[in-house]
Structure formats: structure tokens, C-alpha cells
């Protein structure tokens, strides 16, 4: 019996052909695996994980490391191993992971900072408190500051250079600075996506980091984020209750080792800058 997918990124599903196409195992972990398929990457996630852009959440756990032994193909119906169906997409709930247009409420960065205060010592969180407690943070601190300034003032070239100078830095599988950048992009107003700035920043950074991180950055540049991040953004834009907000932040923070907290740190700075500028570039004000 094939394993059933319970959720699938709708955008991913639309990008798949009806006729299965060749795929290969890119990387496998205990609770996730990445397949290289066509032009992009498809991520398989164990039950309980929040759906991410380009991913599928499975009904039951699999030993992903074994996938490398098969000739894999991927289509809209599912994933096939040696032509036998291994994972079925047929009953999967297709979720849109598109960030909506809403701006964060004024002061919405505050609860994020409060939350991060309990996570000091993790990744780049120290930067939110004007501290540095590890070599990565020390190295990145001035560069991130420069990046924030450039994003809101300079044109495309400046932004590209700034993104290039922060990409791929940190100890994790997705380097901390990439997570930070994804968080920052999630907080930016939709105007940055509409004019292609977000995509440009993401693409520039993606070119300087590893495949897995690059995949997440590219989705972020187009405005696609995990369902946990979307839930958090909705809370902060629509004024959800404290409990709901805390739960959403906990779920985001639990991603990876420091990735979730690095994302929240970037998100915090993005909210801060958006609220400081009113969501408009400085030359417009």
C-alpha cells in the first residue's frame, strides 16, 4: 500500500505533470527528505510537520534514507519507486501557501521580541538584543545592518550586493543568515514582492548557499512560506489572541535546531523596519 500524503503545497502540485517525471533523492533526514525533480526540489515531511512551500506531509513516517535505492518518478498522482506507487497525492489536501497582502499591525514586532528573549543563546537571536554571543553573529552583525539599510533605500544593484554579503553564513543545514533572510522577506510589505525586489534578494542569496537553503529562499522570494509562518503572520496582522500568537511562534521556532529562531529574528527585524518606515521605501517618504 502506498503511503498517503495528507497535505501538499498547491503550487507544487500545479507544477507537476500528470505524467510522472524522473526524480532523484537529493538528501534524507530523519523527518524529511528532498527530491530533485524537474527544475525544482520536492520535500517530503513526516507526520506532524507543518507544510512548507514545495513540500508534502505524509500520513505516516518513512525511512527516507532508503529512497536513494529506487528509480523515482513524480507526477500529480504521487511518487513512484521502480514504477510501483510509493506515495499517493490523490487524497492530499492542497494548501495555498501564499503570503497575503496585509501589513503587520503597528508594534507587532514587540511580541516577537518578547518571545525571542526566551531564546537568547540560539543562533542569531542575540542580534535582536544588540548583542553578539557567537562568531557567526559577530561576523554577520554589520552586514545585516547594512542589508537592512540598503533594502529600504537603494536600488536593485545595492540590494543584490547586500544580499550576497549575508548569504550562506551559519552552522546549520540552512545557514543562519539564510533563515534570517527568509524571515525578513516574510515581514516585508507586498510591494517588495510585486516589484520583484524580494525575488531578486532571494535569488542572489540562493546562488551563494547550498541547495536546500536556496530552495527555501526562492520560495520566500516569491511570497511562499510554511503554514506555520503564515499562521503567525495572520496573528500579527489581524491581531490574534496571545495564546494563538504564542502557539504560532512556538511552532515556527521549533523548526530545525536554530533555523526557527533565526527566522523569527529576521522576521522581527523585518517587522521592525516595516513599522518604522510605514511599509514604504525611504525615498518614497
Amino acid at each position, binding site marked *: 500500500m502506498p503511503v498517503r500524503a495528507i497535505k501538499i503545497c498547491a503550487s507544487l502540485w500545479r507544477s507537476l505533470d500528470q505524467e510522472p517525471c524522473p526524480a532523484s533523492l*537529493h*538528501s534524507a*533526514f*530523519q*523527518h*524529511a527528505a528532498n527530491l530533485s525533480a524537474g527544475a525544482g526540489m520536492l520535500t517530503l515531511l513526516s507526520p506532524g510537520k507543518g507544510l512548507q512551500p514545495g513540500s508534502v506531509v505524509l500520513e505516516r*513516517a*518513512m*525511512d527516507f*534514507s*532508503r529512497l536513494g*535505492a*529506487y528509480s523515482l518518478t513524480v507526477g500529480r498522482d504521487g511518487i513512484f*519507486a*521502480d514504477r*510501483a506507487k*510509493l506515495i499517493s497525492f490523490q487524497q492530499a489536501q492542497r494548501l495555498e501557501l501564499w503570503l497575503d497582502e496585509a501589513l503587520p499591525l503597528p508594534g507587532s514586532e514587540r511580541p516577537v521580541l518578547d518571545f525571542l528573549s526566551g531564546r537568547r543563546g540560539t543562533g542569531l537571536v542575540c542580534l535582536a538584543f544588540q548583542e553578539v554571543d557567537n*562568531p*557567526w553573529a559577530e*561576523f554577520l552583525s554589520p552586514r545585516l545592518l547594512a542589508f537592512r539599510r540598503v533594502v529600504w533605500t537603494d536600488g536593485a544593484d545595492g540590494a543584490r550586493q547586500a544580499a550576497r*554579503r*549575508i*548569504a*550562506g*553564513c*551559519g*552552522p*546549520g*543545514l*540552512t*545557514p543562519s*543568515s539564510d533563515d534570517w533572510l527568509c524571515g525578513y522577506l516574510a515581514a516585508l510589505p507586498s510591494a517588495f514582492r510585486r516589484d520583484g525586489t524580494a525575488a531578486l534578494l532571494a535569488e542572489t542569496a540562493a546562488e*551563494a*548557499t*547550498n*541547495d*536546500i*537553503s536556496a530552495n527555501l529562499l526562492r520560495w520566500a522570494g516569491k511570497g511562499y512560506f510554511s503554514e506555520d509562518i503564515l499562521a503567525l503572520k495572520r496573528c500579527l496582522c489581524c491581531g490574534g489572541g496571545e495564546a494563538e500568537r504564542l502557539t504560532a511562534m512556538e511552532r515556527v521556532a521549533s523548526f*530545525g*535546531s*536554530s*533555523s526557527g529562531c533565526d527566522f523569527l529574528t529576521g522576521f522581527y527585524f523585518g517587522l521592525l523596519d516595516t513599522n518604522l518606515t510605514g511599509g514604504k521605501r525611504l525615498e518614497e517618504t
Partner: protein
Amino acid sequence: MKKLEVRKNTYYDSVTLMIISKEVKTVDGVNEALVGMGTDLNQELVKALHLATPGFEEVTANDFFVAADCDSDEAFAAAVAKVDELLSKKASKGKSDYFPPTLEGALKVNPDLNMAIISVPGRHAAGVAQNCLDHNINVMLFSDNVTIEEEKELKENAAAKELLMMGPDCGTAIINHVPLAFANVVKSGDIGMVCASGTGAQEVSCIIDQLGGGISQLLGTGGRDLRKEIGGTMMKLCLDALINDPKTKVIAMVSKPPAPEIAAQILDQAAAGGKPVVVCFIGGDPTEIEKRGLVAACSLEDCAHKAVALSKGETPETFDTFSMGVQQAEQMAAAEVAKMAPTQKYIRGLYTGGTLCDEAMKLLIGELGHIQSNIPLNPEDNLENARTAASVRHTFLDFGDDAFTVGRPHPMIDPSLRAERVVQEASDPEAAVVLVDCVIGYGSHEDPAADLADAIRAAKAEASKNGRHLAVVASVCGTEGDPQSRSATQMKLADAGAIVLPTNAQATRFAQLILRRL
């Protein structure tokens, strides 16, 4: 000194990378270390920390690296070993059951696999087995309903490649100390076994274990292997394997009596092998065996005793008595008979293990003359419709036979049908003794004694209500190491009122003592 370890195109999850980062720095002789993916900026940081070494520029964003400043090469080796230790810990933690959908898929997952256990519907079994043989994989074919022609072809193909083709209907094996299907936790040792009977193999191996001996390999052949049509192909191959196995000092061979010409070939081969061989052709004539200088066993228990004696360098002696001593056994039997009503005359053997049932009947047939059964020793004693028919005079039932297993699991997995029959026999005023087995170990029910004990209590109560005493005699096939535990199983049965003997042969002989007094 600066040292670098690079793993090309290798990804570890962030949690693992963080643990590694932290732990590597704690290794003695490591002054500074940086672990991560080889992105440009991480490389830049490595240089900033003065950890870069020649060749570092070749590291790419998709490579995992460990860069360290160490006191010595040994310190760095220890750091790398620490990394591997942490990674393997993570890998084993993440392991889960995985079922490749095809044989080809399984071979891709593990190209070195060389043993397959096949349990598929009989009509597909031969094809699957042949596919395995084609891939040079030894086969244990648990499935039955394979035609004798198919079996012959499979075994000839296997023998040509010197591969095992155990079965069809092979339920027990221990290969390199790994119990397969219905098998028990026995000690490792120098006694190699080749058996054409499942519970026979279990009984002998368990008694060997109880006597302090151990098993090198236990190979199964399937029950039809020694028939003339098959020619003992697998018995010969297995025998040859054990003769040539340096870890096997003594060989024990267990089977129903083979076709005479096949028996002669097998015995000649065993005699020429140069190792002591104990042969238990259950109920068979020992003459041909002893004529060749081999050791004949009169029961499964005797086979185990003789094999252990030979393993210890002792002279094997026939064991056909009681561990408790004959006198005590006689007294206990007399005490049982004293409580019985005059109508009680017959024995009812209710077995989950087919070979144990067969052995018991063969030990008793000389005195009883006729035993009705669904696996009769003589055709005229066949009990028709055994599942629904009432027992007649002396009756033995093998609940693992097709008559009882259509649409049901094997009674070693689901012993409930046998338990019901135990209670049913109590209402027969002519039933004097109920003889039962209880097989434990891997594959068997997790607590087969529970249902049986309840049934024994109920049966005894029913008989007592009607002014009778029903003797229930039992034996447990298993070891202390089995998940169910032999002693715990024995205790449950004894608490329910059964007289528990150490082996099936002793239980049968004890029942015989009772019958002689009726």
C-alpha cells in the same frame, strides 16, 4: 595545526550539525573548530578564524566540513571519530521499519542481502522463490500449497547454485544465531541441525539448550524433502554444509522416516562426513542408521540428549525415562488414576505442533493399537471431519493441519480452537487423559498458556462436576530465553492443574503410565 575534514554533497540536519559543533570542541587537543556547510561566507569565517587549510577553497556550498585547530593528528582523528559517532547515533535513532515493494527494490536498498523468507499465497510462492534464487538469495519458503513438481524444480535449481531452498512449508530455522519464523532463543554452540519438521526442530533445539548444549545452525528442508519425488535434495545440501562447517562438531538430523532409497543415500552421506551424526527418523527403524555407525534416537528428546553427549565428548546413551525418576512418575500416575471414574479409559492428544503430535502417537501406538487422528499413523484410523467430529476412543488431533487452519491462523499463533477442544473433551465420560503441548518462542502467541490454563481449569471443573477426574498432561516446548519464558509458561499450566513434564516424550510416557492402569 590546522586540519580539515570534508564530506562532499553531504547533508545533515541542523540539530545534528549543532550537536556536532558543540561536541567537537570538547575533544581533547581540539583548540577551535568550526562545523558547517561550505558556503562562501562560512569559508570566509573559517579564514577569519585562521582555520583554513590548503584545499579549503575547493569546498562547495553543498559540502559538509569540519575545520579545526588541533594539537596533533591524533586529536583531529579523535574529533572526526566523534563526528562519526554522533552521526551514527542519529542514524540508528532514526531507523524505522521499511518494506521495499519489490525484490529489486530490496536489493537496491541492500545489495548484499542473501536470505529471503517468503510467505505469500501458495500459487505465487514458487515464482517468488525462483526470483530470489535467480538473484543468488537463499530461500526460506514458509508458504505451503506449492506443487511437488515446483518444489523439485526449485530445489534442483538451488542445489546447482549451492543455495538453500528451505521449504515449502518450512517454519523453523536458526541461521547464524538468528531465529527465523517459529524458533526459540537457544544458546550458540557446536551442534548443527538439519530438520524436515518444524516443531521437531524446535523441541530438539530447546532440549539441547536446557541440557547446556548450543546450536551452530538449524536448517530446515520442508516436510516433503525426503520423499522419493524430491530425493532429499535439500537434506543432502544442508548435511554437506554442516559437514563442512567448522563451527559444527555434531550433527542432529530430524525427520519422519524417509523413503528407503532416499534414507540410504542420506545415511551414506552422513556416515562419510566424518562427524558424529545423531539421526531421529521419528518412529523409524534404527537398524539402517546404526549399521552405518551413526547414532539413532528413539525420540526428539533422546536426539537432543545424544547430540549434547557427543558435543561434550561423552558416549551417548538412550534417554527414555523420566527426569523425575520412574518411581515418582509411577506414583503420580497412580494418584491420578485413583481419582478417576470407571468409565474413563481413553487419551485425547490435542496438539498445536504437528511433529509433536506425530511423535506422541508413535510412542503410544505400540500399546494402544489404534489412534484416531486427522494425521493418522494408519489410514484406517483417519478421523473424518476432525474439526467438528467428536473424539473416538484414543484420539489425537493436530490443530495445525489443514482441517483446522482453513480461514484461521496456525494454532501456535491463535490457540483458541485447541483451548475450546480441551473443554469439550471434558464432557466425554470416556476421556481420562488430555495430553497437550504448548509451543512458545518467536512467532508463537505471546502467551499461549493463558487460554490453555483457563481451558484446563474449565475442563477439570466440568469433569469434577460429573464425578470424574480428568488428568491433563502437558509439556512446554521453549527456553527460558524465549519472550514467553519456559518456566513462566510451565507455572501457568501447573497452577491450572496440569501435570507438566519437561518434554513431549516424557509427557507422552507419563500419559502411558496412566493408561496402563485403566
